[in-house]
């Protein structure tokens, strides 16, 4: 009791003392995107502050690898910022369930986003959303347009054309047909399996069926991408087994490789590194005219610390993040990270424009392993890395890989049992 009245007394004095400048609220943003610090300081924050006098915003990123741990301890200690940049899926869901993130379902700005966009920051039943989607990355293939012109190849549309193009590059011998290695493992799964896969499992349809337990990883739709990956090996460079992710990037930007299985986050880096024309094509479909599916993977969101002192100001900022103005600033400053709002954003970068244009032609989905399915042990995402590498190296058949993954998933995931 005494403590309470003391607090009130203190607050009152504090209020009277600061009444003269109390309107200025400072919001602090927690983030792992320390690469984007200048972008926030020079473009995003000034644009927001100009529209909303009285709210000051501070962007305080930490190192990506430490972010989750740092954030968790700050939240537990009550010293975390007012706004929290959200990792997709389980990491943020755990924060919501622990009561650290506020429910944002009643915010009007949330209607600017599609269900796929919101799925990364929702409870499993979709009843509560806790982060405003900020950006996604799209998978596809980036190619050396000068090399394609020199060899007389057009960007392939179908799988047959894709392998014909690879054959032609290999016969010519000037370029390594495709720059990808298996040393770091994740490229094989992320830029291989989850890049070409949605065309086989029909995007959201297959992904949701897998979560519901209606499809199995041993089904044709889920093993066929491994069979295709197995055909990639001869087109990868010599010693691809020990080739790392930066090796692949360098091989491509130095002009030694013709095709790069990519995620759109590469765009800004490649723009500064490569001195040749680049183009992009979407994951090839089996037959011309088939519906195409792309991995349009939700990557960054932003939510509100449930314990913030300034919920109104924080909501104002979140509403602005959901607005077209933010989408246009963010999308153009970071080509390759695409705003998720329903309203299309006009992008200036030609390569980014190509990537984002696929949203109009194809059905969007997210990476198959990210929602719910990577919660248990063995971890499906990590297992998929290994399986994709094994498929490319040919150490196991697609059916064996499917069976192994299915066994692992079924061991802890009830709908698959």
């Amino acid at each position, binding site marked *: 009791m005494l403590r309470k009245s003391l607090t009130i007394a203190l607050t009152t004095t504090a209020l009277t003392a600061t009444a003269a400048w109390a309107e200025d609220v400072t919001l602090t943003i927690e983030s792992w995107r320390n690469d984007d610090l200048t972008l926030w300081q020079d473009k995003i924050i000034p644009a927001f502050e100009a529209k909303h006098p009285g709210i000051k915003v501070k962007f305080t990123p930490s190192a990506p690898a430490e972010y989750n741990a740092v954030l968790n301890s700050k939240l537990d200690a009550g010293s975390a910022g007012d706004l929290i940049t959200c990792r997709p899926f389980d990491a943020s869901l755990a924060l919501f369930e622990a009561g650290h993130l506020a429910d944002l379902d009643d915010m009007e700005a949330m209607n600017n986003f599609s269900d796929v966009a919101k799925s990364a920051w929702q409870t499993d039943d979709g009843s509560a959303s806790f982060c405003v989607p900020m950006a996604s990355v799209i998978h596809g293939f980036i190619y050396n347009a000068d090399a394609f012109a020199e060899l007389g190849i057009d960007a392939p549309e179908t799988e047959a054309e894709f392998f014909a193009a690879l054959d032609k590059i290999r016969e010519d011998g000037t370029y390594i047909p495709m720059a990808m290695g298996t040393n*770091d493992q994740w490229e094989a799964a992320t830029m291989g399996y989850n890049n070409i896969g949605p065309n086989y499992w029909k995007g959201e349809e297959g992904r949701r069926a897998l979560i519901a337990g209606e499809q199995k990883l041993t089904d044709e739709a889920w093993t066929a991408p491994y069979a295709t990956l197995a055909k990639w090996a001869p087109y990868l460079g010599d*010693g691809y087994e020990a080739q790392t992710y930066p090796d692949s990037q360098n091989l491509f930007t130095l002009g030694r490789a013709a095709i790069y299985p990519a995620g759109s986050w590469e765009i800004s880096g490649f723009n500064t590194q490569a001195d040749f024309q680049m183009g992009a094509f979407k994951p090839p479909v089996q037959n011309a005219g088939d519906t195409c599916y792309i991995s349009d993977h939700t990557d960054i969101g932003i939510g509100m610390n449930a314990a913030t002192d300034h919920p109104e100001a924080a909501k104002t900022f979140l509403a602005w993040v959901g607005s077209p103005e933010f989408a246009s600033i963010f999308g153009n400053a970071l080509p390759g990270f695409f705003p998720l709002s329903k309203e299309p954003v006009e992008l200036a970068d030609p390569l980014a424009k190509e990537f984002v244009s696929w949203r109009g032609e194809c059905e969007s989905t997210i990476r198959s392993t990210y929602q719910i399915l990577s919660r248990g042990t063995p971890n499906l995402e990590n297992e998929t890395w*290994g399986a994709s590498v094994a498929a490319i190296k040919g150490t196991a058949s697609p059916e064996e890989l499917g069976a192994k993954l299915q066994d692992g998933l079924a061991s802890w995931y009830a709908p698959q049992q």
Partner: protein
Amino acid sequence: MTKPRVRWHIAVFLAPAVLIYSAVMIFPLFNTLRLALYSRVDQERIFTGLDNFRTLFFDPIWAEQFWNALGNNFWFFLVHMLVQNPIGIALAAILSHPRLRFAALYRSAIFIPTILSFVIIGFAWKLILSPIWGIAPSMLDAVGLKSLFAPWLGKEEYALTTLALISVWQFVGIPMMLIYAALLSIPEEILEAGEIDGITGLAAFWKIKLPLILPSIGIISILTFVGNFNAFDLIYASQGALAGPDYSTDILGTFMYRTFFGFQLQLGDPHMGSAIAGAMFAIILVGVCIYLFGIQTRMRRYQL
């Protein structure tokens, strides 16, 4: 009769070391072991006894990973024992030869990698062995042996041995220095006495020096054992937490890290992680005990 004086100074002098050691070593050790007996269910920590250990040893998925890591760890240790320590002893024997010139230079050159960071070693060797930019393929090419080159770090069958040999390259200086010091402490008179009896050269090494440095070799073996079963950095720096390709370089340290702190979408599980750490502790403890009670007490010592 006077009471024996309380010797306060003993407590005072011991206190700093005991306090610091307890705070940073003993307490965390027992706390980790305690953590292994709990589990988190629905945001709450509950006591589960030895359940985590049962999962680790008998659940097929966990057990497979654990035995794989343990087996890899033994191979890692074996390579060190069979390559690092004999080479270290040989180098020390050569260095202690009185007529060797530039001995100090060689000694420093061989010892320097030991003081480098694992991250530097990992990256440097990854670049040297890189099939794309590395100098290993071009050097082999220059002597006409290009066909022997393989992307070693990327092949399941070679990766662990390659990393073990990199680690040997880094740490060969330690057994060398310890043996070198032991060799220098052998008095000249003994060797001269041997010479009079007709034992010279290589025979002197096998019959006089080696028995005298055996205790040092024992110490080196146990240091290697503890170091290898606690190893983590080199594998993590060069192959990442998944210890690829296909877990072929996964050792207990990387397995523990991945489980404890989580990786990519895998959330960390401090309780299972502690169980693995507990198992590592037990393995090292057993190994050290075998050495201390089984080997060291039986070793013959010579008064020099």
